[in-house]
């Protein structure tokens, strides 16, 4: 219908109509170019990562990369096993999930089922602020506040440790869990709640046995998205968790995540063509694929398991 709207009336001179059409077309093409440019970002990311990653794998065997347990690309005798970095990333993300998933879900249940509208209106923006604070600030807080606190309780803890990073990253991703889960909970129609109350259920039973199961796809999707954010988190883990690619599951030791390695390697002088330069891209590719897979999984769960209500 809108296509036809550009057609002019009879009385307008022909050359005016033509120049007007040309202008319209040029504008349309320009706008399309801007929209198409956004896909070029993805193409660019993939092309850049893939190019140098292939260069990297001509020099390092892919088996060593994924099974090696030592990450020492800057030493004289080099080792390129990415497992210590993967372990580091997943340990921080796992620790963050232990905090953020239950706290975020309970926050969402409180906001959606318990809080008065006035209280909700105050609490929601406050939680949004948590998501808006720069991650370098979380890093500072982890290093100068959380870590000393842990060290007074457990004096054997390293100055840089995974636990401190996990705690602040966990807090950082609470808003991701709580706001997306709350959206899912609020989308559950009231008739379900009222039906359950009618059968004599208490508020707790309505919330945990009716509303949460009905919103489960949205809740799980928010969990996956939050963990994906934790894996991609950079500054807080770089500052608080340290730069020691250490194959350990002890959260009180210094470790290094994939993101922290990328920062460390790019801070030094890494000329193009060197193996250290290429590790940036190989590790970046690994990080990109992991987060992409999690984001796609979360979208798939949302669309595949969504409960539709009229």
């Amino acid at each position: 219908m809108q296509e036809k709207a550009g057609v002019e009336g009879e009385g307008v001179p022909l050359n005016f109509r033509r120049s007007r059409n040309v202008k319209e077309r040029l504008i349309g093409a320009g706008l399309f170019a801007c929209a198409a440019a956004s896909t070029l970002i993805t193409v660019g990311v993939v092309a850049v990562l893939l190019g140098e990653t292939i260069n990297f794998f001509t020099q390092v065997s892919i088996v060593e990369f994924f099974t090696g347990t030592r990450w020492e690309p800057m030493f004289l005798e080099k080792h390129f096993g990415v497992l210590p970095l993967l372990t580091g990333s997943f340990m921080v993300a796992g620790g963050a999930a232990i905090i953020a998933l239950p706290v975020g879900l309970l926050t969402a249940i409180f906001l959606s089922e318990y809080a008065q509208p006035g209280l909700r209106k105050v609490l929601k923006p406050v939680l949004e602020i948590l998501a808006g604070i720069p991650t370098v600030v979380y890093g500072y807080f982890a290093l100068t506040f959380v870590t000393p606190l842990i060290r007074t309780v457990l004096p054997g803890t390293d100055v840089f440790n995974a636990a401190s990073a996990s705690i602040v990253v966990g807090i950082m991703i609470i808003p991701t869990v709580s706001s997306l889960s709350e959206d899912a909970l609020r989308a559950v129609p009231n008739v379900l709640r009222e039906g359950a109350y009618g059968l004599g259920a208490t508020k707790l039973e309505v919330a945990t046995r009716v509303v949460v199961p009905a919103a489960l796809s949205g809740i799980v999707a928010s969990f996956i998205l939050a963990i994906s954010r934790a894996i991609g988190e950079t500054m807080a883990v770089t500052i608080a968790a340290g730069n020691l690619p250490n194959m350990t599951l002890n959260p009180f030791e210094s470790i290094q995540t994939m993101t922290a390695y990328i920062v460390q390697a790019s801070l030094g002088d890494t000329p193009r063509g060197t193996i250290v330069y290429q590790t940036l891209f190989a590790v970046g590719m690994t990080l990109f694929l992991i987060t992409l897979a999690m984001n796609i999984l979360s979208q798939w769960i949302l669309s595949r398991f969504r409960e539709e209500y009229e």
Partner: protein
Amino acid sequence: MSDTESMFAGVSNPRARRRRRMGAVFAVLCAAATMVGVVFLAVLLVDVALDGVPRITREFLTGFASRLPEQAGIKAALAGSVWILLLTAFIAFPTSVSAAIYLEEYAPHNWMTRVIQTNIANLAGIPSIVYGILGLALFVRYLGFDRSVLSGALTLSLLVMPVIIMASQEAIKAVPSTLREAAYGLGATRWQVVSTQVLPMAMPGILTGTILALSRAVGETAPLIMVGAVGFIAFTPSGPLDRFTVLPLQVYSWVSRPQEEFHLLAAAGIVVLLVLLLTMNAVAIVLRNRYQTRN
């Protein structure tokens, strides 16, 4: 809902009482969980303010980075952040809004539009450091912009574009279609409809989304480390091809030193950064409120 619960009040068998008590415990648990985020935020802000505010002096705001903590200041970082903010806005705003106009007003319903739309949603989930790697390879090395303000602003533009596009699309969607139809009925072309009716109506929403996205860019550190911004810069950029540093990076460079004095400087830098972000957010909220009352 409290009516339904008061119905139980009359029932006094032990099982009903236990269920009620469980319900009360759960309600307290949910409220406590909500307070975790709120309390953490309060402790963080108070801690940073206590460490940082006393350190903010005129010398701190007008001095350059220094090896001596008592002389160090944030002039270069503050100037760099403003440069990055303006240049990123200049690059990202027109392209993102154009993309949003295309997707909402022009795009046909075909596979290409769907690809573009899905792609934008996925871009928002890419970790910011991956954008930094792209910026390093593309702008710094391939296009030869080196470690400049321009490289940094282009990298951050890629980062905020998906956010601005999605916010602008929401704002454009909210413009009632009767307005468009009336304009078409008067013989306006599509671009006339967009530029004289849709955009003015959607602009407050677009600006709110843009400011929030830009405040994210101002707080970013990792992508700018990748494109080669460093904490120790003793001049303010005078053009887009100059080297630069920004506030979060200056904070990072102070935090990563072992001495306590530098940590206090970092706290002071954080206070300045948070004030800047708070101002931007306040502007966005004012815009949003004005927008809501008009509709």
